[in-house]
């Protein structure tokens, strides 16, 4: 498979505090990679560096074989906080990336309607973000990221603030969008269960380094029942042990 992004010897520190040290990994096209690790392990910083929003102290990021030097539309970002612009309606928020790209109104309408239909947000279209539930807000933010031409999406604990039920729902929505839109995803979370359920590959970050890379080979499409299987629980335990040691 073609590598979409390669991280080579990446290091970053805040003054004296080393946040990331010598990271090396790659993500293949259409792969779903989860990065897990304890609080303060540098997960968000890593995503921001990949997005071009922070500069690494050392190392390279190759995106589609080329050195990545600044933010690009080909890499989308979904933040911990949904970042929906409060003065725009759900519809206006979702089509914002296309407006920035200056696509024609016809094209914007077409792509917007198509995706809003897919995630079932049509009846919330004219609402403002403050009128939505937390789950709906995140779904709108997710939809906004998937409407773009971005080939790689960086998701920074997007569902961390949701309750378990909504989180499960959002995970399924995410898999649906991912399957339909064929994007590569780099998903940061501190939930082992979420990572095992969603990803093809998991990177465990600890003490600023990659502690382990694991492959998750549960068949797709996945549904919520697989999280009750013995294999799933074993995988979860294995990662938990690695995390704790």
């Amino acid at each position, binding site marked *: 498979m073609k590598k979409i992004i390669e991280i080579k010897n990446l290091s970053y520190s805040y003054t004296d505090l080393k946040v990331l040290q010598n990271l090396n990994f790659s993500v293949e096209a259409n792969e779903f990679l989860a990065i897990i690790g304890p609080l303060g392990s540098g997960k968000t910083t890593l995503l921001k560096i990949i997005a071009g*929003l922070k500069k690494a102290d050392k190392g390279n990021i190759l995106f589609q074989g080329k050195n990545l030097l600044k*933010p*690009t539309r080909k890499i989308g970002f979904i933040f911990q906080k949904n*970042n929906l*612009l409060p*003065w725009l309606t759900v519809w206006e928020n979702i089509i914002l990336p296309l407006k*920035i*790209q200056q696509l024609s109104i016809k094209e914007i309408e077409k792509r917007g309607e198509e995706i809003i239909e897919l995630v079932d947000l049509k009846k919330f279209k004219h609402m403002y973000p403050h009128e939505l539930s937390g789950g709906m807000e995140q779904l709108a933010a997710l939809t906004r990221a998937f409407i773009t031409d971005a080939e790689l999406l960086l998701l920074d604990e997007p569902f961390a603030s949701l309750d378990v039920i909504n989180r499960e729902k959002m995970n399924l929505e995410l898999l649906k969008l991912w399957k339909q839109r064929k994007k590569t995803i780099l998903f940061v979370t501190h939930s082992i269960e979420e990572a095992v359920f969603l990803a093809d590959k998991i990177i465990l970050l600890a003490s600023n380094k990659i502690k382990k890379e694991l492959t998750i080979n549960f068949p797709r499409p996945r549904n919520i029942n697989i999280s009750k299987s013995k294999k799933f629980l074993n995988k979860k335990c294995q990662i938990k042990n690695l995390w704790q040691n």
Partner: protein
Amino acid sequence: MKGGFFVRLINKVLPIGSFILFLGFWYLILLIKNYPSFILPTPHEVAIRFLKSITSGILPFHIFITLQEIFLGVLVGFSLAFGLGYILAKFKFLKLAISPLIIGFQAVPIIAMAPLLVIWLGPGIEAKVFVCAATLFFPVLINSMVGFSNIETNYYDLLNSLEANFWQKLKFLEIPASMPIFFAGLKIGVTLSVIGAVVGEFVSSDKGLGFLISLAGGLYDTPLRFVAFFTLSLIALLLYLGVSWGEKKLLKWK
């Protein structure tokens, strides 16, 4: 529903009630002190003078002159203050360089500067517009500077990741995000501008509500002075309500 109706009714009745109370208090002072009309006229004397000055066309003429100065003053002062607020919020080194100057100028009483401004800019509308603009300039500037500086960096991250250019950031983020501050500033601005226009007219003018106050003072026509006071208050109130209405209509998302 019933509770809602009563709350709405009370909200409407309260301002009227406080006005009636104010008139009662006024009559009470007159009853106790027994002042002559040229020191403190009765409310009904003021009302009669008000009607007379309306029908004679004196009041509408002076209102029109003062309103002209207010609108121009707000336009100039507000645009400059809001624009400079944006620039200072964006460029920290400029903020550092200009802040002492701004604070220093803010301390100069505009009423003391007004006679000089008339000499510099002439006796026409320019000096009055300048005084009016200067009165509202500093509060609006500080307000907008703080507002623009406080736009969340997360939103900038989002627009940067979408490769938005300068104008797109202005259009989709900075202008809408600054709207609440814009209206807060405008509310301060329009009320202060009324004071500014009158200060300008006090110093040198032969028309406008400030001139009317001076004229009435010279003629010992205190009811006319009160007419001008109340007209100014009414103008400030209407401008404030107009801005509040605009805010409610435009900031539905709040």
